């Protein structure tokens, strides 16, 4: 769907992107991660043809990207604004027309999206009368109004309350199901874990990782397992003997716990279950994967050092 090849970009002497390449597949939600100032926004601007790269190219559906492709992209920048004295409807019509919709189409799409987000009452309101969250909704609608094949969202959840974050997430999941592609740049790692299929991590102008989330997590797993059980904590610890090490525990109630255990030597998950059976009542047991937060820190910190 989108291929970024060997993109480099410098602003005077500061290097913003160094030989960055990545591929975004059709129908996936692709996370673009990285610390502040890593070069994510510059990369997004290059994809949107707002900034011209010094080197490299961007391909869209196999062909070199042109201005005509911009109509198939929906872009929600991180620092986004609206014309404060325009009405909600006027704004949506203006941006929809700018992205190539006809007068008739833009009205149909507005009806659909305003119904979907339940904001029909705001049509004639001026943007300056809206709260920040309401304005964010309008911005999101303006981004997807022309039904782009590729959606590029830079920090789409900032400023939203949890309900609206959930609403946007569900929209993105539905778009993926409909075959659309989404590039999501965010610091919200929980959302990344929940909805992204693959991610790329940019750090200090370079791409330092690109893979499926599960692969990135699997590469960094530390042999940790969690057991949720009912019973006596002392009996649990005594049962472990020398082959295992308790890392930490959550107390759910007086006789209910979740304990994370690290294997020692040749001990396996099966061995762990064997020693526990009969000592405590096991409710669930699973392998603990590192969170994306951990993966992020794990990748970024060594480079930073």
């Amino acid at each position, binding site marked *: 769907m989108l291929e970024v090849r060997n993109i480099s970009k410098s602003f005077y002497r500061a290097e913003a992107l160094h030989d960055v390449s990545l591929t975004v597949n059709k129908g996936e939600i692709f996370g673009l991660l990285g610390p502040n100032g890593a070069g994510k926004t510059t990369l997004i601007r290059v994809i949107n043809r707002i900034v011209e790269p010094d080197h490299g190219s961007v391909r869209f559906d196999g062909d070199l990207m042109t201005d005509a492709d911009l109509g198939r992209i929906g*872009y929600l920048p991180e620092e*986004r*604004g*609206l*014309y404060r004295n*325009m009405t909600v409807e006027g704004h949506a019509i203006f941006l929809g*027309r*700018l*992205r190539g919709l006809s007068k008739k189409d833009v009205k149909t799409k507005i009806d659909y999206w305003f119904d979907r987000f339940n904001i029909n009452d705001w049509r004639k309101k001026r943007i300056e009368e809206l709260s920040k969250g309401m304005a964010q909704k309008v911005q999101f609608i303006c981004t997807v109004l022309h039904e782009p094949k590729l959606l590029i969202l830079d920090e789409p959840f900032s400023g939203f309350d949890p309900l609206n974050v959930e609403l946007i997430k569900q929209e993105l999941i539905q778009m993926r199901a409909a075959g659309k592609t989404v590039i999501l740049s965010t610091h919200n790692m929980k959302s990344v874990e929940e909805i992204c299929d693959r991610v790329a991590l940019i750090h200090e102008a370079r791409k330092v990782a690109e893979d499926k989330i599960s692969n990135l997590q699997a590469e960094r797993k530390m042999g940790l397992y969690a057991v949720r059980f009912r019973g006596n904590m002392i009996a649990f610890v005594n049962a472990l003997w020398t082959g295992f090490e308790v890392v930490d525990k959550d107390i759910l109630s007086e006789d209910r716990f979740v304990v994370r255990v690290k294997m020692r030597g040749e001990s396996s998950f099966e061995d762990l279950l064997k020693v526990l059976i009969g000592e405590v009542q096991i409710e669930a047991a699973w392998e603990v994967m590192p969170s994306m937060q951990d993966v992020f820190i794990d990748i970024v910190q060594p480079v930073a050092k």
Partner: protein
Amino acid sequence: MKNSLLIAIREWKERVGSRSFLLFSVLGPMVVLALIYMLFVFGGESKQHWNVLIADPTGILKDRVLNDDDQNISYSFADNYIKSEEFRDAKKFQGFDAMLEINEQILYTKVSHVFYRQKPSAQMEKSVQYHIERRLEEVMVDRFADFSIQEYLKIKQPLNLGFRDVYDPEGQKSDLEGWVGFFYGIIIFVFVFLFGMTILRSVSREKSNRIVEVLLASVSPNQLMLGKIIGIGLSALVQFLIWAVIIGAGLFLMRETLFPDMLNAANLNVQDLGIEAANQSYGEQYFSAREYNQFVELVYNRVRFSVILPFFLLFFIGGYFFYGALFASVGATMGSESDGQQFVLPIIIMLILALYSGYYVLNYPESPMAGFLQYLPFTSPVVVMVKLAQGYEHGYEIYVSLLILFISAFAMLAVASRLYKNGILQFGHRVRIKHIFKWLRKT
């Protein structure tokens, strides 16, 4: 181009829909009309009425100064000497606005004083001086000469030395018409400045509220800038048309209802003309009846709107694009709205210099400098307006000037679009000259 059009329509709607636009569109021409009306009505006559007491103990002027000489002045006589303090304080003199002293020495010294309570208008002073001086001349001719007052007036007639242009002996290229051209030039520059500042504010607002990045994902910086300049320019044109219609209708109504007789040569105030002719020493210092009618005639008959207006429109558009591109690039390079104000100063200086050059050409239309200034795109809109109004519409010069202006406007748009493209996504920085040069070099 379609995107530029959409941007232009949005800008146009925003301006035209605003209250300030409506206010400026209606109030502006009303103020101009009111000023014109006041010039017509009060330009030639004073509304002030004066009661003058002439203290003439020796009876020099008795029965010579008549009240029907001037409706605005009433003269009364006292045959005794009155001190100024007495005139100031005595109850019986409170009805008089001024006291004129005539003593026996006046025929020799030609010195007298008028004591007033409130300072009179310059015209009132001239009228009193005129009335008294004429009557004294009659007395002097009676006493000291053996020829009649008519013969005296013939002798007294000053030399009327008329300086005439050998190429324009009829004086068709008059200064007054030149001033009308200058007025047109001022209108161009006032609109260019007002709407140029609107462009600047609009660009910097889009930068500060970050809508610009959303727009740039759909339109190129050049399209955005061009759309903005066109949209705001169209609103300027609409405003100008509203001004033209209101002022035009107002002038028409004034001609039909308030001043129909002033346009008729038969209605000239012959008496006032006579006064002026007899006393040219001060006749040219204030609006006489003839000049008053000349002004009305200038507006209604001598300004060749059909010649001036088409060129006005073309130079308006050219000048607007030229300066509009400058304002847009300043707006795009600004880090914050307040930071870039200093960069507006050079543009304002250019505009002021352009106005001054118009004034210069008004006085020296044939000078080599005037020839140069009419080709310079910074100054040509106002200079050409002055020259056109002075009657220089024939020849290739104006078309060359127009061509240079439009080529320069396109060149300026190209330069501005480079600054715009490179500066529009820079936020919160302090503008430095070196940034501007870097942005100009970058493609």
